[in-house]
């Protein structure tokens, strides 16, 4: 065997050298200089050429000129990775986003208390459903993929996605939301397969990471639209997003989207898991605002830290989403909220998914403030912080904390010199 391999390799080397007129050494040298090799003078090629490589053949990568990356969230908070190699919170670069899909590499990441990513062999992973069911069920990943699948767009947003006067960019203010195409099996399919027993009112979803994060959710949510997702943006989930399988309860706060899903227990009451303890509130109104996400939108261009080159035409662009359903309308104001104009929806609004909006605007060069406001299909309207404070009957202070998830309107200030800054500052 050994000599055969050697001889084949020798043969290949020889034939490559003959066919291409290069030795392997020449090719390596060419590859090394590919990026700074200038075009031949007089040729019609304006740019250096990227040499093909095994890596580019197998799994493509973006241009070296596209440098948009995620950052640890919040600024000045715990780093990711930390000194122990644990992941904490990582925010999506929304300022550079186009369309509604967040690339898997740029999807936001959050972990309950800082966590290592489990390196799960999908052949060994199982999902077990038990508790108040007629027949418990254990599924391998292969089993799971045999069930009828669905593919849907859904956003996930972290409860920590709050905007404050101290933040500078939209990545800092809103980067803890992302939207991906998820493929999997409806949880209702699996629960019907098991058969729900009387008294089944809640379920606990549990992950396989080291803390075995678990959350209680209503069984009505499970039967309505929860997805057991193994696919993300056309390929397998990434480890940071729960490989090989995670729960998607569309429109619920991020923490409910249990990653590395290994167990679902159907129960007859709220189980008050550690993750649920994080939602413990004195006020039932505030608690209700910490489950399903409200209507929300943000302008991603122009946004904090960006610079308008001068007066003239711009298309204001942004994202809108709601945990209550699809977005019905988005309005944009370019005069600090005096007049609201209907924005154009650039994509078909889908339930619990980002929609891209645009508004055509000619800037006259004067200082102003731009804002966006989303309304969803069940009539919930995104509000100014002042309106929310008024509803709660509290004064609006600079660092006013919106109860529940912060879905208040985000203002961006545009100065005469075209610089864009946080309107809350």
């Amino acid at each position: 065997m050994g000599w055969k391999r050697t001889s084949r390799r020798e043969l290949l080397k020889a034939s490559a050298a003959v066919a291409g007129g290069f030795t392997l050494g020449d090719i390596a040298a060419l590859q090394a200089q590919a990026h700074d090799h200038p075009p031949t003078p007089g040729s019609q090629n304006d740019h250096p050429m990227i040499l093909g490589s095994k890596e580019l053949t197998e799994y493509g990568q973006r241009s070296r000129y596209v440098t948009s990356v995620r950052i640890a969230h919040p600024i000045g908070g715990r780093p990711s990775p930390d000194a122990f190699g644990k992941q904490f919170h990582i925010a999506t670069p929304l300022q550079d986003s186009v369309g509604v899909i967040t690339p898997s590499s740029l999807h936001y990441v959050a972990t309950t208390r800082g966590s290592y990513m489990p390196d799960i062999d999908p052949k060994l992973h199982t999902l077990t459903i038990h508790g108040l069911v007629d027949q418990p069920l254990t599924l391998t990943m292969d089993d799971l993929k045999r069930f009828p699948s669905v593919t849907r767009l859904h956003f996930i947003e972290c409860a920590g996605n709050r905007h404050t006067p101290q933040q500078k960019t939209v990545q800092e203010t809103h980067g803890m939301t992302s939207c991906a195409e998820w493929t999997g099996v409806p949880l209702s399919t699996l629960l019907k397969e098991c058969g729900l027993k009387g008294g089944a009112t809640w379920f606990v979803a549990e992950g396989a990471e080291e803390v075995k994060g678990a959350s209680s959710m209503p069984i009505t949510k499970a039967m309505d639209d929860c997805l057991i997702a193994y696919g993300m943006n056309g390929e397998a989930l990434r480890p940071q997003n729960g490989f090989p399988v995670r729960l998607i309860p569309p429109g619920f706060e991020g923490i409910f989207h249990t990653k590395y899903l290994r167990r679902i227990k159907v129960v007859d009451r709220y189980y008050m898991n550690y993750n649920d303890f994080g939602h413990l509130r004195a006020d039932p109104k505030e608690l209700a605002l910490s489950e399903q996400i409200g209507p929300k939108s943000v302008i991603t261009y122009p946004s904090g830290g960006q610079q308008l080159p001068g007066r003239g035409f711009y298309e204001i662009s942004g994202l809108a989403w709601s945990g209550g359903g699809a977005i019905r309308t988005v309005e944009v104001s370019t005069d600090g909220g005096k007049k609201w104009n209907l924005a154009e929806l650039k994509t078909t609004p889908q339930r619990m998914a980002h929609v891209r909006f645009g508004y055509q605007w000619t800037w006259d060069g004067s200082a102003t403030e731009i804002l966006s406001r989303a309304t969803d299909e069940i009539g919930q309207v995104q509000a100014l912080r002042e309106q929310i404070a008024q509803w709660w009957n509290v004064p609006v202070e600079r660092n006013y904390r919106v109860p529940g998830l912060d879905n208040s309107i985000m203002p961006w200030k545009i100065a005469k010199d075209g610089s864009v800054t946080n309107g809350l500052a």
Partner: protein
Amino acid sequence: MGSLRLVTILLPTIVLLVGSPAFAQSPTYGVGRTPTAEEIRRMDISIGPTGEELPPGRGTAKEGAQVFEQKGCVACHGPAGLGGMAPELQSKKGQDVPIWKRERILPLRSPFATTVWDYIRRGMPAMNEGTLTANEVYSLTAYLLFLNKVIAEDEVLDQQSLPKVKMPIGDDYAKLHEWKPRTPRLEGYPY
């Protein structure tokens, strides 16, 4: 051996005969397998408020103080749960202060002692999660509840007594309203 083999032969037959037709809602796809009761018992680490899933075992605060030292809890949480890098575990405010004005410490504010037990077993000690014995978890739970003056130092926690521990919060916390699809997150809240 003989009886074991008999079981091996008979079991699938029994499941086949009794299993499928017995259920009102028979499986549609028939994909996957039924886990054994023992498999479920081993993986079911969810301890609900009734404590029905608690394993046998027992422990007191005195024993828990020793476990807290032995298992290295002190390294992250500090001696007696104070002054470490990890979250503090002992309240510094008096019992006369209303619970919602006191610290957000699990073995103080949790409505159920079972949640404390559940989290210690599933989530601690960091890097060696899930390695504590039932007795060690009962002991640590007792110790942390004692540090927060929820139970007495000599109180024994076990399957029966743990779910009965009266937590200081009592019933003074919000319950989730019934969630319904396609409805606002909070009725009457326009935003």
